[in-house]
């Protein structure tokens, strides 16, 4: 059995900024445990020195000329925002008052 406890699920959900109910915590702990147990086979799959592949096709970094190109206007950029003011995205307080 893997180490995916309800407390760990709660912690991971917190890191991922997802609020979870107690019911979700226990269901996800059970389901993710099973998934982790089954994907853990990768640990034994590789013997010896094998390089990691992050990207399927070898590619070089891409550059372009440093010139201004058309982009979204401020109004367009804000058009899908849940809240905005004075040409900026408006959000709730970053820090707790306490």
């Amino acid at each position, binding site marked *: 059995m893997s180490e*995916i406890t309800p407390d*760990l*699920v709660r912690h*991971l*959900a*917190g*890191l*991922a*900024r*997802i*609020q*979870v109910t107690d019911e*979700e915590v226990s269901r*996800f702990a059970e*389901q*993710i445990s*099973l*998934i*982790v147990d*089954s*994907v*853990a*086979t*990768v*640990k034994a*799959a*590789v013997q010896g020195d*094998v*390089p*990691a*592949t*992050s*990207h*399927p*096709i070898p*590619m070089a*970094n*891409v550059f*372009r000329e440093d010139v201004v190109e058309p982009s*979204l206007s401020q109004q*367009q*950029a804000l*058009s*899908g*925002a*849940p*809240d905005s003011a004075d040409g900026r*995205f408006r*959000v*709730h*307080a*970053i*820090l*707790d*008052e306490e």
Partner: protein
Amino acid sequence: MSDLVFKPAHQLVELLRSGEITSVELTQAFLDRINKLNPAVNAYLHVSAESALATAADVDRRRAAGEKLPALAGLPIAVKDNLTTTDAPTTSGSKILEGWVPQYDSTVVAKLRAEMMPILGKTNLDEFAMGSSTEYSAFGPTGNPWALERIPGGSGGGSAAAVAGFLAPIAIGSDTGGSIRYPASMTGTVGIKPTYGAVSRYGLIALASSLDQIGPVSRNVVDSALLQDVIQGHDPHDSTSLPNDLGSMVEAAKKGSIKGLRVGVIKQLQGEGFQPGVLARFNESIELLKAAGAEIVEVDCPSFEYAIAAYYLILPAEASSNLAKFDSVRFGLRVTPEGNPTIERVMAATREAGFGPEVKRRIILGTYALSSGYYDAYYGSAQKVRTLIQRDFAKAFEAADVLVSPTAPTTAFKIGEKNEDPIAMYLNDVATIPANLAGIPGISLPIGTADEDGLPVGIQFLAPAMQDSRLYHVGAALESALEAKWGKTMMDFAPSLEALASEVK
């Protein structure tokens, strides 16, 4: 109802070009059928009748004036709802993006517009393309046009069902682990995942950036070839876009004889776990390829055993990072808890309300796989498995020009059968995932129905990176051998969707 909707796309293109039919007439025929049958199928989340007809009218006017038009001008198309469109909402099947209308077109959609193709609407998918049944869509499941109580595959079940149900002549899908090929197999249609980077991902809502690829969905091989020729090509807006010219897929599809082509049967993707009716059709197709002059060899890909495991670490890891952008600030949903909450609490409440269970599971799993202390054991090992799978392919392609397997272990299962069992769901993609991990192209095409349930079976061909043309060549050859044997096309085996839809009512 107009018979036009049942004609293959390449024939419709000829009828449009010769002026025998107008694009308005054709587009209206599809809109009428969508209007009538989409409530039973739920292939479309949004129908763009007005803008589709406007494009069609423009094409007709220009054609009447004698203007030279693009090859597919006037041919309607459906687009998976994870590609941005400025004139239609783009939800990616998620509540968190419900009603969002993007401010820019994805490159593929821009290319469809430049080709003057009327866009009929946006098709259903598993939320953020996470799933293989389309049941994880926040807007309800899609029915399989062969049997509406069954899944059409996923994540692109909407595009596959639209094409299989004659609700579109052709469609756009995206494939991260099989999301084009698996639905093609479930619905008796053709689906292609091009080489990674062959089609621009700009404006595709990212699931796993090192795996995602956009590709065509159709009812026959040459129709997909027509579409890939339109959507492929380098795009400076996508840093992973290939600069290479892959050539014409239509020419490849028309190449004909496969005499001497070496076809490698993948040892690991047959036998145990595969439904008898799937294997029976598969073996018949191998015999047809042999009769057509192909040389059949067996290839050994031992690392495929670890492909699903590696995939379900790499995908959630990349997805957990990609989906961080849904933070209630710049677009989409915002849920504000009571009191005077901080932005962190607003984000957490928004993501709780906006994401469905599979998305949450995968984000949490990905966050775990990337945590310090676990990173090397899980994500690091998975990336090494990726290398091993690439080496298996490299070796197999020394012995064979294309590789072959069934696309999926079984035919379409019933809606609700697996959706609380993630691991059973993940096994559906056992044959399609290795191609995404290695970045190589793959096609699924229909090869008949299984004896035990009468449902479609698909075969998958894989080719080396940038050799997409080989898939169209061998695919078209097998398709014509099968049609010669049957004396009809695959879709002629399908039941009438009108009849199925009226039973549901």
